[in-house]
């Protein structure tokens, strides 16, 4: 074997954990909170029906959290998304009912409207230089006001079935027994992920880069396949995969790919990491910021459509506090307020964590008062944990010095024995 491949699994694991403590920590915390509520609710949490509900309840927050993660990575914030959800939802409802336009026209028009709203805010932020906090705080008021104006203070309901299907429809297939298309889709997805895992490993091997052992990769594949199949089996046992689930999977996969593996994503990270260094590296930083806000607008409109469809109504108060849920999801999922850090998967984990927490607390009958209280604490502790960890790694925290030296000494002791042949 070549020497670069001979890194011990333990040191690799430690390296991985050191770089991504928050994300791994949150993934573990997500599993823990799922197990906790599964026990507390006497198994109600993971029933096929409740899993389907979880997806549908949290779909619009997940969509918003993806966009919010990008905004926060560039070092900005968007407080207007809740109002934009309401406004695009209201305009869509008017187009569907008062103007009688078909859904296949209304959906693209609504998304375009979201893009225009994003462009409006992105213009002030990127090109005029008004802080995003101010621009989107203004946007929060402007679009809430606009919602009230177009709705005349009243709700519009009901809405056509062609819209409602977005939020409440399922993948077509037979209605009794296990839903086979869902299982087939799950199997295909699991196969694709396993294929990517092994191809990545083979490519790294070919380049003499360190890779995990074949056994470790195989173990990873088994976990992925088991998790996906268990998840799709549960869904197939109910009504199958919801349509909004298909939408979410596509969005998550697409955005995760763009942010991880494309030059476009890299530029977004660079702008957030250091705008001036990025500019001097040939990145058009203003344009990047502008498009991140356009993207947020489009995703807000999409969330608006899903939410309106789920509610089967456009209401003046729709989307209130959504921005805070999306921001909390992003920060819990590993974003940094300073920008340049975070991932799409992190945002998804953060949103799911909050979703499971909400759902679980409701199932055990905890009131909204305590739910808010606990969610607030979770957000605070997650970010504090991250800051504590960063200090420990970068070594600039004299207060924690004693602790740090101790833990590192412990890890240093086993180093020589590990490297022994």
């Amino acid at each position: 074997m070549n020497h670069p491949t001979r890194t011990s699994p333990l040191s690799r694991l430690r390296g991985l954990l050191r770089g991504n403590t928050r994300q791994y920590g949150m993934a573990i915390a997500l599993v823990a909170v799922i197990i906790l509520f599964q026990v507390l609710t006497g198994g109600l949490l993971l029933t096929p029906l409740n899993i389907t509900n979880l997806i549908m309840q949290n779909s619009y927050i997940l969509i918003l959290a993806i966009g919010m993660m990008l905004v926060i990575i560039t070092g900005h914030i968007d407080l207007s998304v809740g109002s934009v959800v309401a406004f695009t939802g209201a305009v869509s409802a008017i187009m569907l009912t008062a103007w009688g336009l078909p859904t296949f026209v209304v959906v693209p028009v609504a998304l375009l409207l979201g893009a225009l709203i994003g462009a409006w805010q992105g213009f002030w932020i990127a090109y005029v230089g008004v802080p995003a906090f101010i621009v989107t705080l203004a946007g929060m008021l402007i679009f809430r006001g606009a919602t009230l104006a177009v709705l005349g203070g009243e709700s519009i309901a009901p809405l056509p079935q062609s819209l409602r299907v977005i939020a409440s429809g399922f993948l077509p297939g037979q209605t009794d027994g296990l839903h086979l298309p869902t299982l087939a889709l799950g199997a295909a997805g699991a196969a694709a992920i396993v294929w990517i895992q092994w191809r990545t490993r083979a490519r790294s091997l070919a380049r003499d880069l360190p890779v995990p052992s074949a056994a470790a990769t195989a173990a990873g594949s088994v976990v992925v396949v088991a998790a996906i199949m268990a998840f799709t089996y549960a869904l197939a046992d109910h009504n199958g995969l919801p349509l909004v689930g298909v939408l979410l999977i596509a969005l998550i996969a697409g955005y995760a790919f763009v942010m991880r593996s494309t030059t476009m994503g890299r530029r977004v990270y660079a702008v957030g990491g250091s705008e001036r260094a990025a500019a001097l590296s040939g990145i058009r930083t203003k344009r990047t910021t502008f498009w991140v806000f356009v993207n947020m607008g489009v995703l807000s409109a999409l969330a608006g459509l899903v939410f309106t469809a789920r509610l089967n109504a456009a209401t003046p108060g729709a989307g209130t506090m959504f921005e805070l849920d999306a921001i909390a999801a992003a920060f819990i999922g590993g974003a940094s307020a300073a920008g340049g850090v975070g991932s799409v998967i992190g945002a998804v984990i953060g949103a799911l964590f909050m979703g499971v927490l909400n759902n679980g607390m409701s199932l055990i009958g905890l009131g909204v008062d305590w739910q808010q209280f606990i969610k607030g604490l979770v957000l605070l502790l997650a970010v504090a944990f991250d800051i504590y960890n960063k200090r420990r790694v970068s070594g600039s925290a004299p207060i924690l010095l004693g602790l740090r030296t101790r833990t590192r000494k412990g890890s240093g002791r086993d180093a020589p024995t590990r490297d022994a042949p």
Partner: protein
Amino acid sequence: MSTPNTAPAAPGPLLRMRDIRKEFPGVRALDGVSLDVAHGSVHALMGENGAGKSTLMKVLSGVHPAGSYTGTVEVAGEPRAFADVAASERAGIAIIHQELALIPQLSISENVLLGHEEARFGVIDWGATHARARELLRRVGLDENPATPVSELSIGAQQLVEIAKALAKDVRLLILDEPTSALNETESDRLLELLSDLRAQGMACVLISHKLGEVMRVSDEVTILRDGRTVETLAVERDDHGRPSVDEDRVIRGMVGRDLDQRYPDREGDIGPVRFEVRDWTVDHPAQAGRRMVEGVGLTLRSGEVVGMAGLMGAGRTEFAMSLFGRSYGRYVRGALLRDGEELRVGDVADAIAAGVAYVPEDRKSLGLILDDDIRHNTTLAALGRVSTRGVIDPGLETVEAQRMSERMRVRSHGANQTVRTLSGGNQQKVVLGKWMFTRPELLILDEPTRGIDVGAKYEIYLIVRRLAAEGACVLLISSELPEILGMCDRVYAMCEGRITGEVPRGEADQETLMRLMTRTGDPT
């Protein structure tokens, strides 16, 4: 103050540090360092980056609290264990860091007396505060209105404000970490004179510096650290002409642990024809309309040639370079950049990179690097096209390329995924250089590439630059260190007040000629 353990006739040193050991995770930063600083002396602390100078001073000033290191610290004969910075300040020790700790929006008075305001029941007596500040400013020789906001002062003046702030705390021992690295020649001279004055008033100073010349000028003793150990302490005496008794080469030898035969690499390769030409480049200040920062700069760059641009701080060198590099500074007024006789269209940085121009900025931390990202991503950022196809990055290729570049630049790191913030200054600069080498530049502009970098790393950077030139690229080296300009460049342009004031070929260039040109203000005729 009574010091019972020492006879009054032969008082011990003001500071005595013995056998200091300090470990960081995985690194032994200090491995038995001892240091004595006499009353009323200037004591220079020298060593390569990572030798332990800053760590030692952090131990002394309480940044690393007692208990996190072993060894003894005595101030005026009394054993001390500082729990924090406030404790060391009470003992009369003040440290002035490389990055100044002033609050830019506040006035000089407010900064100088921050935490020590002339106040009664928390209400500040502005008259008394300004008067006290004025007195302290006189001691450091700064002639400014104490009500002026610090942000309006030059870096040199801000440094003096920092020292005044330290004096306000009744210091006996002042530690200065690279105080002149951001100063121009005049400001540096002023600061060094101030150190001599303070010494005459009985104060002791510890001076950390990479600039051998200034160390030799002011210090009474030099302690050399290498790899966390004290190598030796040399007493410096000066003859009637002010010539020091210690040879600079001797100090360098102590620092690097071997003889450095040359501080600059040999020239190799031939100088070819003119490749790049700048004509009549003129730039205005970004915010103040009509304020000329660069006026009619014209120069030529031949392939295989290292061209120097000498000038004092404020001469407009950085402004010129950044403006040329895709108009990253100020308002472009007029001027052309030509390659092989053809004018290039360079509207932004992406255009400049595409045209084969690379700019290594003066401020590597905020302009050159994304500090919280790793070596790999920093290396490829300016040339993502080289590791991607149709916008999709190949992570394996990226890692391989970044590793190759790091090896070529001799970056010392755990690997390509190490965060650049955790690298030493010299290694960070090598990563910046690697990032721009990765764009395969035909014209490399280096802006103060070796500021704050130790002798060994400097030489490695010079080697890389020389090699690039030998491969046929053009290099424009901006520096305020004249020995560097003279040692590295084949031809030198001198700049003053935004204009080129002279062009000197290598054979005719010497420090006096260049300094005369660099200070030629106003119209020569």
